[in-house]
């Protein structure tokens, strides 16, 4: 399940990255060339890369909780930034990414994976 969730998060964050790039590069987005739009772009890329890393490495246990927690915060802050940049599509994409990461965390908590016994 967490693979699906991370895939969803990566896709949503990739879409967010594209939207953030469009907002930053303009024209006439109201935020083109601003440090706020650049920050949102970096935030969306970080979430996309982090979710991709989780998919690729299939992290478990502590490292997965750490990464998912980080992704949750990054997605939430990027969504907040997008909201204050008046980029509703970007905000929606990052909320989707956030929800996907949340699903990954919930599945981890409800189905904890144990180390294989020796």
């Amino acid at each position, binding site marked *: 399940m967490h693979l699906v969730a991370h895939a969803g998060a990566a896709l949503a964050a990739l879409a967010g990255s594209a939207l953030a790039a469009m907002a930053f590069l303009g*024209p*006439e*987005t*109201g*935020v083109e060339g*601003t*440090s*706020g*739009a650049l*920050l949102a772009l970096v935030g969306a890329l970080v979430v996309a890369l982090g979710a991709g890393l989780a998919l690729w490495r299939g992290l478990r246990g502590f490292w997965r909780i750490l990464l998912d927690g980080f992704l949750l915060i990054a997605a939430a802050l990027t969504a907040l*930034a997008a909201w*204050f*940049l*008046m980029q509703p599509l970007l905000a929606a994409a990052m909320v989707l990414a956030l929800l996907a990461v949340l699903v990954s965390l919930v599945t981890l908590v409800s189905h904890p994976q144990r180390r294989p016994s020796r």
Partner: protein
Amino acid sequence: MTCSLLTLPLRSAALAALLAAPALAEQTTWTGFHGDLASTKFADVARFTPATVGNLVRAWEVRTGDVSDGSGDRPATVWSATPVYANGMLYLGTPFYRILALDPATGAEIWSYDSHSTLEALTQPALKNRGVAYWESGQQGPCEKRVYLGTMDAHLHAVDADTGALCPDFGEGGILDVNRWNRVNARFPFSLLQPPLVVGDRLYLGWAGKDWEYAVAPPGNLLALDARTGRLEWELSFIPEEMIPQTGTANIWTAMSADPELGLLYAPVSSPSPNYWGGNRTDPIPLATSVTAVDLETGEVVWSFQHVHHDIWDYDTPAAPQLVDIERDGQTIPALVQTTKQGFLYVLDRRTGEPLFPVEERPVPPSDAEGEVASPTQPFALTPPPTNDPFRMPGVWWLADLTSGGQCSRERETYRYEGIFTPPSEQGTFLYPGTAGANNWGGAAVDDRNDILYVNSMRVVQVLTLIPREEYDRIQGDSGNEEGYYPQEGAPYGIHLTEWRNALGLPCWEPPYGTFAAYDLRSGERLYEVPFGLSQQWGFYGLRDWGSPTLGGPVATAGGVIFIGASMDNRVRALDAATGRELWSDIVDAPVVANPAVFTHDGVDYVVFVAGGNSILKDEVSDQVVAYRLP
């Protein structure tokens, strides 16, 4: 917000009823910066209504190519030109001092004229232009219709309105060197950034100078020129002759109004030099910082109303007054409304200069600066209510204070503030409104059918510090557009001016930073006041209740819609005139700091915005012109 929740709907309903008055004949031209000689900025077009403006579409968009952000060798541009619609064309001046004649329906260039003026910021921190002027003789033939463009280096160009060819009978081969009349204290050229006012067959010309640099500067004057030849017909100086060796300016750098029926021109006169210390000019200069009525034929002063005595705040009269006939007690009174940097709205009888609402002379604080003698009283116009509170500056904003560890609260106790006319000091004085004013060159709009005035305002707090000469010479730093270090050479003080912000760059004062309001000029009552626009920092938008600082003015239309740019969020908007509610908006390249032009061409109504930008709002400039129409 000053309206209570209970009264706002009633007032809005009353205003809506007033706006439903039958429209006058359709206006088809927009012949000047404020639309017409009366500077009403009222467009008699009825198809733009609260029900229809949501459907506005871009008719066309033009980029002139005349733009600089100042990063290269060329100074930055500051473009606040309002297009002139006349002769079936749209005429624009650019900050590279070119004229463009565009097809109003498509934006296609019909002709262009390049003045080849020097692109140096000779008197201003940036290359500036506020448009062109248009004249027609009523006869047929070459140069019987002309467009005039002024330049930073004091040349006035006259070209044929049909072809863009220079008019050889004007000045020397079509170019008039206005600096020939810069005969006294000529420390800088007469920069012609605002186009001349055209009344009949005359051009009335003011100029801009190098503010805050010198104590002794060219004395402000008004030049009346023959529209055909450029010959000087008369000249009026605003500084008493005996004061000229020790001061200067009190010039007209902004647009003017005129009432040809009364034979009067209304001149918004600025403050004398230096702007923030007046020890060299303690004798009265009655015409400085005034609105002055001048006989169009002779240049005689008919009356003058000084709204700041002994101005040491740079509270220039920033805009042409709006001329409006006010109905009162069954009588029609020819009036004018003078918007001011202070936020006072002076409503005067334009025949005599007598106030139509009480104006009080109130005691104001004395100065402790060396050699300074501040005026003991200043005029206060409290009806209609000022756009900005003259008695209390905005409080400390908790968010800025919190994020700076109490920096804002500490500074609030450090600097001097005892109401709007607190004199500049070595300790540092809060300027509220700031030097760019509550209102500036955009002025107000007025609907003459119901005597409703619409005006946007800016709520920015600055800190002005007088720096003793020796210390100034040691520490002087960079200067910019309305902030930084300025020498005031010849005065015992240089100055430092800055916005009151915390270490993170957040404003230390409470929002809103800008508002939009409507006033009933018959009663003097404010009908509504709402936050206007969105402020921005690093791209992030503030909340709607915070508003935005504003530069540039509104246009009122017969359909009950207000068009306005003016905000720092790069948006152009249509507002409901009855409530100030936003009906439509679009994002453009940079803040629109000029007035929009609204006109009808070939039966289609257009609103045209110039998105030029201005670093007073934010460091973003553009060369974009955008026209909107209904589908």
